[in-house]
């Protein structure tokens, strides 16, 4: 539990690790069929590493699931497969493209559309198909004001929906993972971590990340105040400014709506220094989906988003 702009605090990384390991073990012990949501982003990388530590020298007793939007950064897919291999865990893939092909969702044909919101349907379909009773996610309370209201164990009804007025109280952080047929819970072991905590932990534990988190040259187009990498779903429109810049990513999501930031930070230590000095939140800086409206995250969470 720490702050982004203050140096020299006791950041309590050990305490956060203890808390996360406790949550992971508790859900694994209580819930019938858990799964860990793995996007290839830094938060899910930390989550996977914590799950590995929680059950050492045994294996992670649940699979990981990647919700594949089809709009991935190539580096992230390679990275995902390497991590699954080295942590010795089973991978389940849920494909947004399959949801589109089967008519479960309809893609907005405009060139600026994002598949980010479509993911919720694919995710919920996969949870239902595999009968997962609990899904670990890397969500953190410092990310967004709707997330600040989130429980560690977040109950989802038979429609996969989050109803903020109907959340289970968590006195003393005693966790209640009970579900009936068709219901599930989301579990957030990183609830009390900040972006800086995540980076410090990555540095301390030497957790490997996709290269796009570090400074590199990339052709980008400036759109809605964000820098989007050109290629795949992102096609420059007439009149848009296209440049090659030295950038990195602060979050990794659907390539069509995740922006890069100008940065020369090429090592974990340099990223930590940059994050510590930042005055803009990672979602404010890089996610078009959250800037859409004041309650964009709340609305997506109600629909079953991560």
């Amino acid at each position, binding site marked *: 539990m720490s702050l982004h702009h203050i140096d020299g605090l006791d950041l309590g990384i050990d305490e956060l690790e203890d808390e996360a390991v406790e949550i992971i073990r508790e859900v694994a012990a209580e819930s019938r069929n858990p799964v860990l949501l793995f996007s290839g982003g830094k938060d899910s990388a930390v989550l996977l590493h914590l799950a590995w530590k929680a059950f*050492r020298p045994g294996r992670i007793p649940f699979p990981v699931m990647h919700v594949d939007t089809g709009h991935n950064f190539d580096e992230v897919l390679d990275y995902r497969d390497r991590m699954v291999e080295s942590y010795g865990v089973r991978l389940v893939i849920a494909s947004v493209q399959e949801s589109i092909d089967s008519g479960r969702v309809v893609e907005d044909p405009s060139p600026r559309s994002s598949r980010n919101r479509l993911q919720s349907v694919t995710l919920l379909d996969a949870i239902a198909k595999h009968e997962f009773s609990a899904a670990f996610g890397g969500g953190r309370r410092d990310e967004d004001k709707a997330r600040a209201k989130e429980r560690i164990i977040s109950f989802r009804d038979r429609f996969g929906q989050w109803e903020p*007025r109907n959340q289970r109280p968590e006195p003393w952080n005693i966790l209640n993972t009970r579900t009936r047929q068709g219901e599930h819970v989301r579990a957030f072991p990183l609830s009390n971590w900040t972006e800086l905590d995540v980076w410090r932990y990555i540095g301390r534990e030497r957790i490997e990340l996709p290269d796009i988190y570090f400074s590199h040259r990339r052709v980008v187009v400036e759109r809605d105040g964000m820098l989007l990498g050109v290629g795949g779903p992102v096609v420059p429109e007439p009149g848009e400014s296209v440049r090659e810049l030295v950038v990195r990513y602060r979050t990794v999501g659907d390539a069509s709506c995740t922006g890069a930031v100008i940065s020369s930070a090429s090592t974990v230590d340099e990223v930590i220094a940059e994050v510590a000095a930042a005055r803009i939140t990672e979602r404010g800086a890089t996610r078009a989906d959250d800037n859409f409206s004041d309650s964009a995250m709340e609305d997506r969470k109600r629909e079953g988003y991560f």
Partner: protein
Amino acid sequence: MVLRIATAGSVDDGKSTLIGRLLHDTKTVFEDQLRAVERASLRYGDGSTNLALLTDGLRAEREQGITIDVAYRFFGTPRRTFVVADTPGHAQYTRNMVTGASVSDVAIVLVDARVGPSEQTKRHLFICSLLGVQRVVVAVNKMDLVDWSRTVFDDIVAEVTEHIGLLPYPLEVDSIPLSALLGENVVDRGSMMPWYEGPSLLEHLEDIEPRRSEASGARLAVQYVIRPHGVEHHDYRGFAGRLFGGSLAVGDEVTVLPGGRTSKISALSRAGVDVFEAQAGQSIAVQLVDDIDVGRGDVIVPSSPALPLVADEFLADISWMSESVLSEGSRWTIKHNSRTLRAIVTSVRHRYDVLGGSVAPTDRLELNDLGVVSIATTAPLVWEPYDRRRSGGAAILMDEATGMTVGAIMLRDRISS
């Protein structure tokens, strides 16, 4: 060390404004968050930037100008990091206040200087008392609207002190006059109240020593048994859980409760890394010398000095959180540490009068009632009275059919049959 703070109240008290002010003046607010609040302030018709919008995160909260749920906020100074569990203060949100207080070291109780201690103030003080939040800061807000009057402040402090005498468990209270709207005495000491010589709210929070009057003695409630199925670790059995109340080291003699079998620690790991000694708060796994039967829900403790209590019938305080009624003879699922059992409420004894501090006999409790019950479990719990050790006496009740959490329980005493 992190200081965990509970707040309760509504926009009427200026609570969200006060927290917004703490976040803003400690420079915890990011530029894009502040810009979003400025935009929202215009949209909701507030004249100036409404700092309350920093904490009211849900759309309904912003539209109605109220706090609905528990929100967790982080802020800090070079001296300390703070986590605020921010909850609404109205009676219908008692369960949220209980939840916020259950994880806090200190509570900030707000009083509007114009009206004095309100129902919400008294309710929050009662909940702090019941939940064992022993350090309370009474923030007398809106002093600017009473001409910074010392008499007004002194009268409110006297009234609060009198009320605290009525509460079931002791509270230690400090009072600070302030104006959240103008920032007076919130982060910096102001100049409007020269008669007040104490610290600002933030200075006080930086200095305060939480009263964590936890009993000593290590307790490891086993969450999970790690059993690798490889040749390499064929004989490995790790009893995993979070350690509380003391340390454990390789070689220590231990007893497994409630069964009472004894053994010795042969190896220890913390978050998967081998260690010789483990400290309170750490997530560990213990290996034992002897091949004895240990499972989830068992508690591993040092064999000396004092063993915790084992019992199956209790007198308990309860916060009822469900719309269904709690009646005598009703059956539930109880979760206490890592043990989940069936339980029966054998009698409903009293309902607390939260505003007056007294108790009234009853045979049923309804949503947001606080009361006293006796409860029996189908098998023994390894427990300690709540006021001696929170984790020894804290439990939740769940509805067997729906799985919902319906009650928060503080075990106070055993009932011998």
